[in-house]
């Protein structure tokens, strides 16, 4: 492509996404059952959709303030207090973003100078490292291991800190492993974070989808709120992926810095989504609870299904993925997924798409009905019989 010579080095050097590669393969196949999706199978609850319609009906189609509607920030402040016992001032410490995706980008851009290092536990969500690189920072992977339940241990953390380390991404509940970090796990790394003066970018987008006790935010530990940039959003728990609505809660200084970028790059999140978000928080607790419970049922079912087929399968405690090991097949994740797709028409995502350490695993989403999961399990079992 002749355009290539015009593209910046930094963009050219970002490796193609492992998911994207696999996506192209899948799109060319027919009649597949996909367990490869990272978004809810539920549609947005009706109350929320209705509010979106009403907002348009009223002709409310303007920009909002850069930080977002005050009513929504108030609702989020209430939600954070109510669910995680966090205190954030809606006037100064909360801003609305276009999904947690924008929030990840803003947090990194407001923190990083050239060459600053950011610790990224892996396997984890695909966008952290590229966003760090786009900001001219350096991603430093912190491998997490199944034998430690895929959490970051104090030793893991210490071993990767240098005098250039500026921040730690804390991606729990985790996509793709389904791991969570409990209060005691967070307490165990807290002192190291403080001692090395790190800022934590805590991506808590799956916080409401936790199946073993309530989610604990690291910002709720003493001394941590001031060094945490908390990211969350409406995509997962409220089944609102397409609305593009997320938020950041942090000390005023961080919010102000991030808002500087946000005002020039985005202006604001869509007003319809913002109004709908207010309804989501105040009127949809029951809907969320119902969805959470359905995911939990599917989680038990699919984990059991994989184990009965003969896979070693880590028991996920959050999000809506399982991350079974395929190591004993002797295949790489890519080989496994390509063969499963070709031979049984099942799409799952190779674990190595989520960073180093992900090879030898596959990510299987359970944002699908039990019926569909059952059908998929039958095919996976047939496949497993050939390769075990």
């Amino acid at each position, binding site marked *: 492509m002749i355009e290539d010579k015009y593209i910046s080095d930094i963009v050219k050097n970002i490796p193609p996404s492992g998911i994207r590669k696999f996506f192209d393969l899948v799109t060319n196949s027919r009649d597949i059952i996909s367990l490869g999706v990272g978004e809810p*199978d539920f549609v947005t609850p009706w109350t929320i959709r209705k509010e979106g319609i009403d907002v348009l009906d009223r002709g409310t189609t303007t920009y909002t303030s850069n930080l977002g509607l005050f009513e929504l920030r108030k609702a989020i402040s209430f939600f954070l207090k109510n669910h995680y016992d966090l205190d954030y001032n809606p006037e100064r410490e909360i801003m609305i973003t276009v999904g947690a995706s924008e929030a990840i980008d803003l947090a990194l851009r407001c923190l990083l100078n050239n060459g600053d290092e950011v610790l990224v536990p892996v396997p984890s969500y695909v966008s952290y490292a590229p966003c760090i690189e786009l900001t001219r920072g350096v991603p430093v992977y912190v491998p997490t291991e199944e034998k430690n339940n895929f959490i970051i241990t104090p030793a893991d953390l210490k071993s990767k800190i240098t005098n250039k380390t500026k921040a730690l991404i804390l991606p729990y509940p985790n996509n793709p492993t389904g791991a969570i970090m409990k209060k005691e796990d967070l307490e165990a790394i807290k002192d190291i974070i403080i001692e090395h003066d790190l800022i934590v970018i805590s991506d808590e987008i799956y916080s409401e989808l936790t199946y073993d006790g309530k989610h604990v935010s690291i910002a709720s530990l003493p001394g941590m709120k001031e060094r945490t940039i908390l990211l969350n959003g409406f995509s997962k728990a409220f089944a609102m992926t397409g609305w593009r609505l997320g938020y950041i809660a942090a000390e005023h200084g961080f919010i102000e810095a991030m808002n500087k970028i946000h005002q020039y790059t985005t202006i604001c999140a869509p007003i319809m989504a913002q109004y709908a978000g207010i309804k989501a928080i105040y009127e949809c607790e029951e809907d969320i609870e119902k969805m959470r419970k359905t995911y939990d*049922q599917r989680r038990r079912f699919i984990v059991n299904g994989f184990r009965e087929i003969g896979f070693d399968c880590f028991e996920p405690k959050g999000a809506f993925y399982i991350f079974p090991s395929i190591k004993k097949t002797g295949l790489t994740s890519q080989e496994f997924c390509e063969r499963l797709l070709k031979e049984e028409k099942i799409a799952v995502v190779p674990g190595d798409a989520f960073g180093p350490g992900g090879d030898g695993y596959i990510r299987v989403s359970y944002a699908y009905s039990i019926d569909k999961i059952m059908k998929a399990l039958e095919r996976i079992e047939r496949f497993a019989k050939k390769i075990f």
Partner: protein
Amino acid sequence: MSKKMDIIELLHENSRLTDKQISIITGLSEDEVKDIIKNLEEEKVLLKYSTLVNWEKTEREVVRALIDVRITPQQGQGFNAIAERIGQYEEVKSVSLISGGYDLSVEVEGKTMKEIAIFVAERLAPIDGVLSTTTHFILKRYKQDGVFFTDGPEDNRLVVTP
């Protein structure tokens, strides 16, 4: 919500789930599941394990009609006696008391429209206390018990996303 409700909802969605599958999904032991289901059957909460069939795709000819029935309530029994009487017929698949302009909604099944028309004229309408009937033939089913008969809304999600 109780585990009992969970089991009811799971079976309502798919009555072919085995006790073992239900135990995995709910986290109860298989024996607990068996006990709960047995109780629910005894209490007549669970009445029948049936299957939703799209008869149009089978060789069986089936016509269904919804019939609005107006009746005079009877001394001491209200609508119940007539409703139960109507329900005795094999052709009648459901009988419900409803609010609004008429009293009972009766769903009737037959092989042909004519058969249903005859049933209404000769069996249903003459019943003592039945004031009037209005028959609506069902021409096409789109959705029943939460399931689409047509292709319905599809999964619009991309097949693989992060």
